[in-house]
């Protein structure tokens, strides 16, 4: 496997990559990977899409308010919403986006400010009332609140994060949005004992955040390939450990707000090797299918069941989502 790692992480930018990186302000190695992943014309579309700021969006909390009523109330305050077609409760903020973090409706917990693609992992996880659900990297709480929203506060949620400051936000958002059926733990999810079993696990893994360049353009240059190596090794350990906590026939959704193979297909190929009971499952999620080969490396072919959402496809942030079932 050392050979595979070498092929993936040894990125020598071509002249084309250097030219595009210069034009769009990226580190050349980042663009080189896009050229290896996508047809050249699509790389242009991706780089162009990343130049446009991401339109703000919210997730309506239908546990506390009917979404139609929220839309009307915000409309009266000059905030115009438009439904995001591929999400259940998502709305683009067409007008008045500067206010959305301060409105009384926000304080009352009627919505959460969240990127459109970021709403998809929980929809794919599809938590049900009565299920034991783990949100393994939960802060600041977007997906934890969404899990309890989907189950009308009736799933038993264990939300874990190790960051002291961000965990305060997690608790605050759960409180603001009216959810009580949760336990919050501040700890490293790698230390969670394997005796604990869950019906559903969400691992929205810590990642390099290449998918959110539209929100934070500094990410065009701020990361190195060494960062990716570190992150992918952490992600492999997380998936491998947490996969032991899924009940038989239970589900884990792995997601990242990054689009490279290093933190996605490569991580999952390694995790599938470690745990043969894991089986990728096809989903209705939008986006392109997972890659099965890249730069001369063959990934587990079942990973084509995963989804990669690129910013130019649906005018969102970039995301990768994969649903895994534990079959034994």
């Amino acid at each position, binding site marked *: 496997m050392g050979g595979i790692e070498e092929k993936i992480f040894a990125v020598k930018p071509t002249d084309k990559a250097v030219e595009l990186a210069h034009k769009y302000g990226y580190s050349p190695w980042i663009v080189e990977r896009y050229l290896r992943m996508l047809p050249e014309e699509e790389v242009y579309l991706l780089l162009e899409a990343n130049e446009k700021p991401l339109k703000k969006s919210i997730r309506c909390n239908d546990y506390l308010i009917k979404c139609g009523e929220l839309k009307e109330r915000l409309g009266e305050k000059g905030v115009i919403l438009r439904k995001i077609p591929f999400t259940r409760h998502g709305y683009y903020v067409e007008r008045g986006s500067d206010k959305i*973090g*301060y409105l*009384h409706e*926000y*304080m*009352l*917990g009627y919505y959460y400010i969240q990127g459109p693609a970021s709403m998809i992992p929980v929809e794919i996880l599809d938590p049900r009332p009565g299920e*034991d659900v783990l949100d393994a990297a939960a802060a*600041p709480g977007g997906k934890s609140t969404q899990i309890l929203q989907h189950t009308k506060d009736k799933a*038993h949620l*264990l939300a874990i994060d190790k960051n002291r*400051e*961000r*965990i*305060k*936000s997690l*608790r*605050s*958002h759960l*409180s*603001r949005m*009216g959810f*009580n*059926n*949760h*336990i*919050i*733990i*501040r*700890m490293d999810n790698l230390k969670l*004992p394997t*005796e*604990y079993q869950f019906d559903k696990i969400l691992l929205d893994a810590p990642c390099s955040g290449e998918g959110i360049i539209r929100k934070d353009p500094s990410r065009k240059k701020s990361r190195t390939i060494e960062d990716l190596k570190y992150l992918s090794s952490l992600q492999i350990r997380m998936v491998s450990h947490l996969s032991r906590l899924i009940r038989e026939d239970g589900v884990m959704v792995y997601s990242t707000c990054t689009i490279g193979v290093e933190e996605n297909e490569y991580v999952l190929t390694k995790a599938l090797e470690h745990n043969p009971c894991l089986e990728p499952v096809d989903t209705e999620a939008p986006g392109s299918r997972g890659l099965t080969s890249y730069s001369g490396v063959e990934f587990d072919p079942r990973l084509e069941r995963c989804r990669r959402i690129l910013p130019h496809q649906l005018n969102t942030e970039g995301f990768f989502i994969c649903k895994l079932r534990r079959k034994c």
Partner: protein
Amino acid sequence: MQAKKKMLKLKPLKPEDRKAVTSMIVEVVKCKVDKLLPGKLYGQYGGSHIDVYSINESLLTRVKQLSYHGINPYSAGLYTATIWRNQKVEPSLDLAKHIWMKCNPAEYRHTVISEAGEKIFLYGKDVFHGNIVQTNTEFGLTIVTNTRGEPLGWGFLRRKNGKELLIENIKDVGWYVRAGG
């Protein structure tokens, strides 16, 4: 010398603390506390104050399992109140929302404030009589609502100099923006 790190421990609420919390709740709500709250009262002991949670059976099983492995939750269940060192019990915003969701408005003390009052209250300020639209109590702890009946937080209703009504802000949902994160 390095200060010893405080170890918090989530434990069943001590009888005197339970009494203090339930007294606060029955002051405001007519419905039975056992029926109102989702589960048993637990307190996060060991710090400068006690955060009180009502934990249902399913969560409690998990809390005990975690405790067996030496893992103490940061929080669990419905955050109900905080008991301060001076024994003062401060109800949580979560409790206000829970009461609003579970009870009929006639069953709990509430004070309605005007739209202008709402803005003031959500900045963490007190609200004076001109912005108090209606109340079903004369004095004391009250849930403060807007004219739609939505819970904005907790206040203490009293008469200023024995005359005009005043709501002292105890905690309001503006806190989520000011400090909540």
